[in-house]
């Protein structure tokens, strides 16, 4: 097995060994469930709207992911720095990039499990009506992409410190900032925001997925953000000079 996959498997196992994974998954299900059924995020009440759609899930889930995913990634590098296990890891014949990608893949395993748990909502809608399957697939792809982006940001903040709480808070701030603050700031700064700028926000990029449109440009956008975060994490790991 390739070292990247060995690392990913260990991280996934370690994630589910800790209660954080279960707490995060539970919070995710409850929060998305509430928003889905009762339209807390400005949406309509599921039962009153009488529409066979899963869209409220896709509108609300990124919010929850931005909060729970940094809790999953916070330990990935910070814990190894604190306990000293990083020394053995980086002196194994693997590159720093492989380490970061392996850890990110492990965390993505959690994301997939968490997203799979929300399948109850579309399944329920399928029982009640005939929703647009394409929209559901597109929405899940969008959630997977934005979730991976949040994870990559979380891995990045985890390489910055040996304190997991600091890694979590920085990750949370970054995710929330990119998810919502960029959008709000642009609206504050411009009366008529330039199209180019609005297009660069996570929200705008995610919007078409939740409508069920799979656009390659949106995929490339999130892939680029992930690549930048991975590169930054690798760079931090490589510039280790701690004793």
């Amino acid at each position, binding site marked *: *097995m390739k*070292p990247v996959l*060995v*690392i990913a498997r*260990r991280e996934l196992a*370690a994630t589910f*060994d*800790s209660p954080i994974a279960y707490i995060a998954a539970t919070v995710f299900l409850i929060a998305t469930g509430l928003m889905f059924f009762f339209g807390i995020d400005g949406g309509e009440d599921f039962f009153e709207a009488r529409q066979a759609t899963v869209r409220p899930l896709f509108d609300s889930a990124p919010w929850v992911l931005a909060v729970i995913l940094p809790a999953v990634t916070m330990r990935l590098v910070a814990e190894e720095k604190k*306990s*000293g*296990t990083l*020394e*053995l890891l*980086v*002196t*194994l*014949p*693997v*590159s720093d990039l492989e380490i970061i990608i392996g850890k990110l893949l492990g965390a993505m395993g959690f994301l997939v499990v968490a997203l799979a748990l929300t399948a109850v909502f579309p399944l329920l809608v399928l029982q009640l009506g005939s929703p647009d399957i394409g929209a559901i697939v597109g929405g899940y792809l969008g959630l997977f992409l934005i979730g991976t982006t949040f994870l990559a940001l979380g891995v990045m903040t985890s390489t910055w410190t040996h304190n997991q709480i600091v890694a979590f808070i920085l990750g949370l701030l970054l995710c929330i900032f990119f998810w919502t603050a960029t959008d709000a700031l642009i609206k504050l700064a411009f009366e008529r925001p330039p199209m180019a700028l609005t297009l660069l926000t996570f929200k705008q990029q995610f919007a078409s997925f939740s409508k069920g449109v799979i656009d390659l440009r949106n995929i490339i956008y999130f892939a680029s953000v992930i690549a930048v975060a991975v590169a930054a994490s690798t760079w931090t790991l490589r510039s*280790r*000079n701690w*004793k």
Partner: protein
Amino acid sequence: MAHKDAQRDGTSAGAVIQIRDLQKSYGDFQALKGISFEVRRGEILGLLGPNGAGKSTTMKILTSFISASSGSVTVDGLDLFREPIETRRRIGYLPESTALYTDMVVYDYLVYCGEMRGFTRKECDERIAKLARRVGIVEKLSASIGTLSKGYKQRVGLAQALLHNPPIVILDEPTSGLDPNQIVEIRELIKELGKDHTVILSTHILPEVRQTCDRIVIIHRGNVVADGTIEEIEGKMADEHELIVGLQLADGDGEKARTALAAIAGVRKAVIGYQVHAPVTHLHFTVSASRDVRPDIARYASEAGHTVIELRRKSMDLEGIFQHLTSDR
């Protein structure tokens, strides 16, 4: 492959690791001020020095945990800084901290390490079975690492370092924190390792060096201050030695005798050590000399009418050398 072999033959005979003018700075602090030494194939090299001398820094650079500020290192003919991944394959490393994943079971951890080094699950099983017996962790294989004693953690760390049967094994203070029985066992294991591995170990426990190492390099304040076999280093230090001189004085004037001793050519210092009053008073001096001055002292004593009680050359042992080289006077 042929190219690599040729490259390897190009290194000086027998040297498996060559370190040249290695420097490392942490901000303003210069941890290594340009050290150079070689490690020969199949030897057990002891890296000695007081705490903070630069032993761990050297080892962390050799294992590519940290980078060097300048200098060069070749491992098995490979440039450490150009081919860090290749050199890591040839090295097994036990860090000073022996930090292992405490949430993992010993066996799973060793499988993880083996798979990280590219072995299949089956190869890992075979290697672990053999190694567990060798390092004595057979009965702990299904235990969680977090529950192990320091001694067993150290053995698991050793197993991890030996799993890929590396030609070079680097052990940073392998016996620190162990009880006397464990220390003896680990030392035996290291000696055993020396038969088919090149071993570099760091320590500040001197008897350990005498018992396990073929050669020593003493590092002090980021510099190599001695390099050779224990016999060679002790021989070099023989020029500078101490004498214990016991005289029963004819006139009882200790200070006069001390001045006379200090005046002998080649004597650097003469200090009154201790006095014995019964049954007759005699004085013991400690004399530092750069040549053998015993005949001169005997001649002086007979001329002055003193009786020589003791005239003994104190051989400089490893402890003495270590203190001599690494004390900040």
